[in-house]
């Protein structure tokens, strides 16, 4: 089976985000960008399924600015077979992404689409679910384990208070949680070879998808700065303060 893995170029997880002075968004000028960590886990899982002989081909797709090509190259260096870059200016909302992925899935007919459960920039946690709705395929979200036997996909899901195991019939959608695997470092020889792997350049228009924004961002602001604590003399004073704050009865 083919596996389709969408990957997103995001602010690197080690970078402290800074909000633009005008409050319209996060400042991305001259900051380090890299592959969304959950997407890395998705790529790793797809490659492992290929190594096990379950998958025949791993296709990675990214939607965003031209530099997303670097993110695709990273995935190719890790072991994906080919890439599709859908260049779109500005922010594409989860629904737009899901519609594009639906179009790619129609064309590629993958047995499995593995996505990160969310991107660390907007934390939407919507794309996988929306894609499942658009395609009508089964979904196993927040996966900590994925097993494929024939056209059955067994997904262990991380849910509140434990885990849940679901059985899906391929084609299916899986979104990855942190514990699913530990992504490999692309080897240096493979990084060099990634350049010669096929990368197709597309636009949303090629798929007939309208990615115009449906939502308007009103304001982006920094989290409140932690204010200084106070010292109390004894337990009685502590209890009194807590009562005054309404956190103790």
């Amino acid at each position, binding site marked *: 089976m083919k596996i389709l893995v969408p990957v997103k170029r995001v602010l690197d997880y080690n970078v402290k985000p800074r909000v633009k002075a005008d409050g319209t968004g996060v400042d991305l000028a001259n900051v380090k960008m890299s592959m969304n960590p959950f997407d890395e886990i998705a790529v790793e899982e797809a490659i492992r399924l290929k190594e096990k002989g379950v998958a025949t081909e791993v296709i990675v797709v990214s939607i965003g600015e031209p530099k997303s090509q670097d993110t695709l190259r*990273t995935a190719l260096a890790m072991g994906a077979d080919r890439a599709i870059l859908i260049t779109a200016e500005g922010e594409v909302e989860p629904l737009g992404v899901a519609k594009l992925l639906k179009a790619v899935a129609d064309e590629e007919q993958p047995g499995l689409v593995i996505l990160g459960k969310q991107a660390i920039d907007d934390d939407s946690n919507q794309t996988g679910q929306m894609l499942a709705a658009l395609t009508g395929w089964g979904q196993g979200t927040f996966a900590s384990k994925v097993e494929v036997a024939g056209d059955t996909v067994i997904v262990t899901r991380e849910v509140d208070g434990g885990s849940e195991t679901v059985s899906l019939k391929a084609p299916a959608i899986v979104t990855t949680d942190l514990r699913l695997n530990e992504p490999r*470092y692309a*080897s240096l020889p493979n990084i060099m070879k990634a*350049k010669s792997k096929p990368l197709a350049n597309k636009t949303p228009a090629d798929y007939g998808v309208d990615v115009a924004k449906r939502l308007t961002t009103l304001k982006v602001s920094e989290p409140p700065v932690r204010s200084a604590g106070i010292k109390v003399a004894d337990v009685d004073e502590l209890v009194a303060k807590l009562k005054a704050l309404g956190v103790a009865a």
Partner: protein
Amino acid sequence: MALDPETFDALIETIRRFVTERLRPLEAQVGEEDELPAALIEEMRQLGLFGLSIPEDYGGLGLSMVEELKIAFEFGRTSPAMRSAFGTNVGIGSQGLVMSGTPEQKEKWLPRIATGEIITSFALTEPDVGSDSAAVKLRAVRDGNVWKLSGTKRYITNADKASLFTVMARTGGAGAHGVSAFLVPADLPGLTIGIPERKMGQQGAHVCDVNFDDVPVPAENMLGAEGDGFKVAMRVLDRGRLHISGVCVGVAERLIADSVAYAVERKQFGKPIAEHQLIQAMIADSKTEALAARAFVLDVAAKKDAGENTTMEAAAVKLFASEMVGRVADRAVQIFGGAGYIADYGIERFYRDVRLFRIYEGTTQIQQLVVARETIRRGG
């Protein structure tokens, strides 16, 4: 081969992550146990680190000198012993073969050196032969189809892990022209390895004696022509000096970053010590020297990539960079103050580690001689 910038950036990025996420957390453990975890060495193999300088035709990356240096800068940002695991395969252990090997010799060994299946080691120094390296005593005597090697090599890096040695042995009369180089598999009869020496620093990187007792080395394992061994060794060291200089720059940058991080946190006289001018002077001196060494080594590397003879320049940069990192490490201990002397902070470990850079692959004094002789010969 020069890589396109995107590919090279991706390469550097991967190495930076590997150093930060995998190597740095293990520094104290490796320093304590004098051993790199086997799983870590396997990860280095998987990453392709053993093949950095092996030509692409033989399964390596075939990096240019400038590219290799930029990678050395990154590996300088952790304990030097980490790099030593694959350092001999990148440098002195493999380059004799790369530069002077026959196509058959290269075909036989290089692909497995590139993958790290074979660890290589370079054996020049002897109990009585250090800086005067043309005085090699280890004897090679022709006996039919083999050369029989007898003698002792000393302080041989990675000897206990190596399966292939490049050995300098005396095949002729006295002096440099009586020395030949041999590729010696570690499993030949009569070859034994001493126990790892206890060293001042760089724990995790081992040096041992290698003893040869009539070791029969096939004649086809001679590297270069008979009597060319010293030339082979000098060419190998030429390249190695640039790589070590790159590591010195990386370690200096690491120590400066650590010093600054400490200096902005540590408060004395009511403010961070980074705001005291005498501390600032040390930071400024270290930064300035590190920047100078970085520019210097990249300049020499570019000349080497362009095919120029850089023997003098490589000696000069090794001299400067190794002395520079010694001063930077000394200042780092000073900025950390009492904490700099305490093992848990790791600064004293680097201070001990960097001391070696001024000694191995040619002492500072030997580099001075090389620089002086060549400068005088050139007339300025």
